[in-house]
């Protein structure tokens, strides 16, 4: 009997046509569209006299440019951003595409609303003109980011021209220590294999620590697979997957649900399947992670300190570390817990789901944001997440502590709206990229988990969240 990895199963079930050299026409089941990477694709479609192949597979939302303040009810002040959002509205109207526009109660970050509406299902291929499409691999969907030319290609043909990836399994075994979360797992993985470690691979995250995670946690991990260079991340289907999907608006129902579940249960790597690369991580040894540099691989543990470039032998890496420390305004040897912060951002497609907000609120409850922190933002990932959090009273917890409670969107993860860092400002951020200028020109980003960001907000500097934990376990 032949055995297959999950990736191979997903790949082979979507091959429309394969050339002798492996160039493959791959069928796409779900196409998520945002306002930033689609205008030129729709324009190309019109110029080519083409129409979308299967309208019902497309789901659009405006997330990158949208303001997150209450003022958004009055529209977008920035005319350039406004035009881009209005262009998406017009394109969706013209072609009859389902869109959760800025004023829609279901609007949100595209990688949050895909899963929560059930638009993303196991066994699908899912694409979006956004690299963090990897998020949706948590559902055993083959999900990856594409460029605008490919957005146009999928609109026109429901297919992509691509080649099969190699497979890597990252096995995370054991129980996570208290206060350590999915974000810490994925930062630790990136710290181990590097930001190009996954290039050319589809990474399947496996092991008891992954199986113990909620779907939210699995999404956080797959979200940052791209930060390890992987085109996609995957987690096998299990009871947690099925339970999450049941009753979602776009999930199958009735007899179709039973048939779907039976099929989805097969979406696991066979026991004897071989991977091209294997990485083993001991979950019991993972500590809360904090990045210190300008690449997600520049990461250490909260009890660590800023590394010394002089100790790095490779000259290119050494130069990179020196440049990063100069940009970040950090000295080698500085303990992480002595780094003071100016702003806190809790949000993004990495960490803006309900579980993330609960974890942050648990730390914040009954405490105050430190006086030295200029701005502490909580930006829910979607309208649905926001309403759920409000129903649980989390908005009050954050507001009472001095956080601002905002409308959903990508916000300060990349600052295409007004939520940005000023030059030199240092931020504890639950987002995914600490690149130079990512959160605003000259801004200094430290990537952390929601609980660690909340702890930093309270302390005004990085602090081991485990020292603030109130629950016994």
């Amino acid at each position, binding site marked *: 009997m032949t055995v297959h990895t999950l990736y191979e199963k997903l790949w082979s079930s979507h091959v429309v046509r394969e050339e002798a050299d492996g160039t493959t026409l791959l*069928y796409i089941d779900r196409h998520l569209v945002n306002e*930033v990477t689609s205008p*030129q694709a729709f324009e190309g479609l019109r110029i080519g006299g083409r129409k979308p192949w299967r309208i019902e597979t497309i789901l659009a939302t405006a997330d990158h440019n949208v303001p997150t303040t209450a003022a958004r009810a009055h529209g977008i002040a920035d005319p*350039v951003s406004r035009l881009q959002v209005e262009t998406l509205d017009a394109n969706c109207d013209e072609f009859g595409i389902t869109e959760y526009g800025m004023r829609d109660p279901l609007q949100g970050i595209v990688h949050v609303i895909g899963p929560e509406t059930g638009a993303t299902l196991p066994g699908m291929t899912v694409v979006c003109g956004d690299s963090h499409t990897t998020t949706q691999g948590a559902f055993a969907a083959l999900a990856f980011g594409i460029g*605008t030319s490919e957005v146009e290609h999928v609109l026109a*043909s429901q297919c992509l021209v691509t080649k099969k990836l190699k497979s890597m399994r990252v096995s995370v075994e054991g129980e996570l220590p208290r206060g350590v979360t999915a974000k810490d797992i994925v930062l630790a993985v990136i710290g181990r294999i590097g930001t190009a470690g996954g290039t050319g691979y589809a990474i399947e995250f496996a092991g008891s620590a992954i199986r113990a995670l909620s779907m939210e946690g699995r999404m956080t991990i797959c979200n940052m697979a791209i930060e390890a260079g992987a085109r996609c991340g995957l987690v096998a289907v299990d009871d947690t997957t099925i339970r999450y999907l049941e009753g979602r608006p776009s999930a199958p129902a009735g007899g179709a649900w039973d048939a779907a579940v039976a099929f989805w249960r097969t979406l696991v790597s066979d026991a004897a399947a071989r991977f091209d690369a294997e990485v083993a991580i001991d979950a019991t040894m993972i500590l809360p992670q904090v990045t210190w540099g300008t690449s997600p691989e520049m990461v250490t543990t909260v009890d660590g300190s800023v590394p010394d470039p002089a100790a790095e032998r490779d000259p290119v890496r050494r130069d990179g570390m020196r440049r990063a420390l100069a940009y970040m305004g950090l000295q080698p040897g500085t303990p992480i817990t002595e780094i003071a912060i100016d702003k806190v951002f809790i949000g993004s497609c990495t960490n803006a789901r309900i579980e993330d907000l609960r974890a942050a609120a648990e730390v914040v409850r009954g405490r105050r944001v430190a006086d030295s922190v200029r701005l502490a933002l909580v930006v829910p990932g979607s309208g649905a997440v926001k309403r759920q959090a409000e129903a649980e009273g989390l908005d009050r917890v954050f507001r009472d502590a001095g956080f601002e409670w905002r409308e959903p969107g990508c916000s300060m993860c990349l600052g*295409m709206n007004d939520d940005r860092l000023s030059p030199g400002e240092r931020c504890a951020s639950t987002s995914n990229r600490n690149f130079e200028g990512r959160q605003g*020109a000259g801004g200094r980003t430290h990537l952390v988990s929601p609980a660690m960001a909340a702890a930093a907000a309270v302390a005004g500097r990085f602090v081991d969240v485990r020292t603030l934990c109130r629950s016994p376990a």
Partner: protein
Amino acid sequence: MKAFQALDGLVVPLDRANVDTDAIIPKQFLKSIRRTGFGPNLFDEWRYLDVGEPGQDCSQRPRNADFVLNQPRYQGAQILLARENFGCGSSREHAPWALEDFGLRVIIASSFAEIFHGNCFKNGLLPIVLDGATVDRLFAETEATPGYRLRVDLAGQTVTTPAGELIPFEVDAFRKDCLLRGLDDIGLTMRHVEEIRAYEARRKATEYWLFD
């Protein structure tokens, strides 16, 4: 799409690893709904001393004289020499649009991030992967030799140094063919419409809930 066959071009060395697409074209310029005009904002935060905003006249902005693209000896460069994992980060095709709009046609690096690598081929840009030792040597030669040029031949898959050394490179056959001929790959895919429909019919029989 713009075709690429061969080029004899001036080389500019960007000596840093993990150059990300946020650095190549910062987010504020992604608000454009056009495909062109990104060149003046290529590497905006490294090229200029002020904070760039869309719609500025970049010729009036203060430049960072230390940044390699601003140095007189590299003006008019068409070949960018880079380090590992070039183009990592976001899927924004604005990155190759900006590089191409600036006047670059070839990027040589020891490795590329995948989405960026694929996006280049859709825009008449040729990304070439060479081994780390060769890239090290090209950096040394470029920096030591004002006016250093390389000849790139896509059909023959070679880079030729001024000394006449031929360095072979690998390139995906399908992408090579599309780039050589400037082919629109949507047009190529649409030749297989019947196969796409047949695939959908097969799929409908097994995962019918996806086709309701």
